[in-house]
């Protein structure tokens, strides 16, 4: 029983982290039809920005509780600065081209951002410790968990609810849904599609950055954090179906539980459990769990 609850809780915390990170990826694909390899780089930017902001808040002698605000600000700053630059300055030139070509463009962007983060922040690791101890420890049965991990779960729920509400209950959100469904028809109905692209891309980057910012206290922020994140978010998004919010949630839960099971029951499978699930889902339902099977078009 204890093992089961440990597996569940570990799976849940990992899944919430995955959900926050993968949601931006699936949103960007749904709207812009771009599978963004640089998503992990934006995550890393969020983490580094968080390190900087928390550091600034500390030098300005704010109470440690304000470090959470610092994390949020970091994510906002990254999204506000990087999103317009990337979308207007780079991606705009490649819209409408083949999907795989766009993947390569984002791969080039990933390479560029790897070095840019190294140039700006250096190669040494940063430790963002201020927020981690804020929530104390939580005891569940014999296991002691850090309260911060459950903050992530709460954050995932808030973000999921916010994105769902934003897409389904606001006018702008319904416009985004229309563009997801068919950008041509939306454009012919008078929707400013490039503004919607901009909005969706900014939200996608914000979600990646907030994932990075809130994860920063849990890891050492150093070059290379982006590489592992990209691959794992791909797995989640592919499993759930590209462009589907519910898919990202379900995919995150599946991957989180799979990894948790592997870690506790079969540690040798830990590294590749995610990819086995991804390969299995791809073989059975190629479009992901929450997508309609597309008919081939002539």
């Amino acid at each position, binding site marked *: 029983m204890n093992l089961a609850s440990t597996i569940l809780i570990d799976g849940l915390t990992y899944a919430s982290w995955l959900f926050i990170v993968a949601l931006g990826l699936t949103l960007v694909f749904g709207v812009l039809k771009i599978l963004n390899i640089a998503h992990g780089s934006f995550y890393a930017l969020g983490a580094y920005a968080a390190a900087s902001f928390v550091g600034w808040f500390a030098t300005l002698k704010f109470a440690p509780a304000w470090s959470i605000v610092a994390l949020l600000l970091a994510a906002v700053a990254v999204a506000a600065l990087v999103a317009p630059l990337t979308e207007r300055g780079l991606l705009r030139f490649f819209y409408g081209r083949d*999907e795989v*070509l766009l993947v390569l463009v984002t791969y*080039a962007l990933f390479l560029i951002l790897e*070095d840019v983060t190294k140039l700006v922040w250096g190669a040494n690791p940063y430790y963002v410790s201020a927020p981690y101890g804020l929530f104390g420890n939580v005891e569940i049965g014999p296991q002691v968990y850090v309260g911060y991990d459950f903050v992530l779960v709460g954050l995932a729920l808030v973000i999921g609810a916010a994105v769902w509400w934003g897409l389904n209950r606001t006018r702008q959100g319904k416009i985004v849904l229309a563009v997801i469904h068919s950008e041509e028809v939306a454009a012919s109905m008078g929707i400013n599609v490039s503004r919607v692209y901009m909005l969706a891309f900014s939200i996608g980057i914000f979600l990646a950055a907030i994932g990075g910012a809130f994860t920063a206290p849990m890891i050492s922020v150093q070059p290379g954090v982006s590489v592992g994140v990209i691959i794992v978010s*791909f797995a989640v998004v592919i499993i759930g179906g590209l462009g589907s919010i519910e898919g990202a949630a379900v995919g995150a839960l599946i991957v989180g539980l799979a990894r948790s099971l592997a870690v506790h029951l079969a540690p040798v499978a830990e590294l590749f459990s995610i990819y086995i699930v991804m*390969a299995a889902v791809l073989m059975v339902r190629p479009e992901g769990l929450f997508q309609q099977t597309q008919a081939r078009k002539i």
Partner: protein
Amino acid sequence: MSASISTAVPAVPMRPPQRASRHLLVIGGIALTAALLVAGAFMPKWLTFLVTMAASHGLVSLGIVLMMRGGVVSFGQGLVFAIGAYAAALAYTRLGMTDAIGLAVLGGFVATLAVAPFAPLLSRYRGIFFAMLTLALSMVVFGVLVKTDALGGSDGFNMGRVTVLGQKLGDAQVGYVLYAVTIVAAAVLALLARIYFDSSRGLLSLAVRDNELRVEYLGGSVRRAMAINFMLAAFAGGTGGALVVMSLGHIDPNFSYWTTSGEFVFVAILAGWQSVLAVFIASTVLEVVRSFSSLYFPNTWQLSLGLFLLFVIRFLPRGIGSLWIRRTGASRHQDAPR
């Protein structure tokens, strides 16, 4: 859609060469190989090593180009690269097989056999999903390799010096001899690839890239073509892997990591899918950029690589090869933005 109008004539981009030009091709290939072999005797050691790496990595990218001609991009070529390399390294250390040529061929065959069960499955996928599935498979193998302590885990293991045709290699010769073996192997496979590209099955791949439904209506088997392309790519990748491990003397699971596959895709995109020579030129370009960047600006070599890739995608969407191979009429519009 404008794309279907401009491709209304299913243009075959190149007419199959006449027999005279086929002979010319073989002679040209042999001449180029001979020239490289002679030049290698006078090149400094670092240059022979660079060209050896470029040629063997080029072989792996040749596999990607083979599949790109069918319209799919594989992000998991690191899989066959790693399998071929591990097969060669294990044959050397566990089975005592030391002949360089034998190891290279073994690497190719083991890689092909290892992925053969997946070929029919993979032939059903296109676009992003093919890329992701190949990526997933290569990452699974990466995970398995890292966790397998018998194979050295994440450190990998070393491999000693190979022999060539029964001859042991002295310190002074080993660089040049491995260079020669790699160049010859690459040349042979490149020529075979060129011949395959111009054969009817190779041209079928181009037709599949254009419009696979039409190919099926005309009686061609798209899935069989894709599966065969995949296995041939595996052979090229495995041979390349074996050649690399022989020159490097070390193997580790990073051979199968997705960033390694990404570099092979980079070379394939840079080269384009029309010219075989362009693949090796592109591979050499990457090795040169990598070596010189690591030396002169170690902090920004990925930046330069990324910028270079963007430049190529934007201005040379069909790769370097398109510089000297022209396409006929209608299909020239295929890659233009819609």
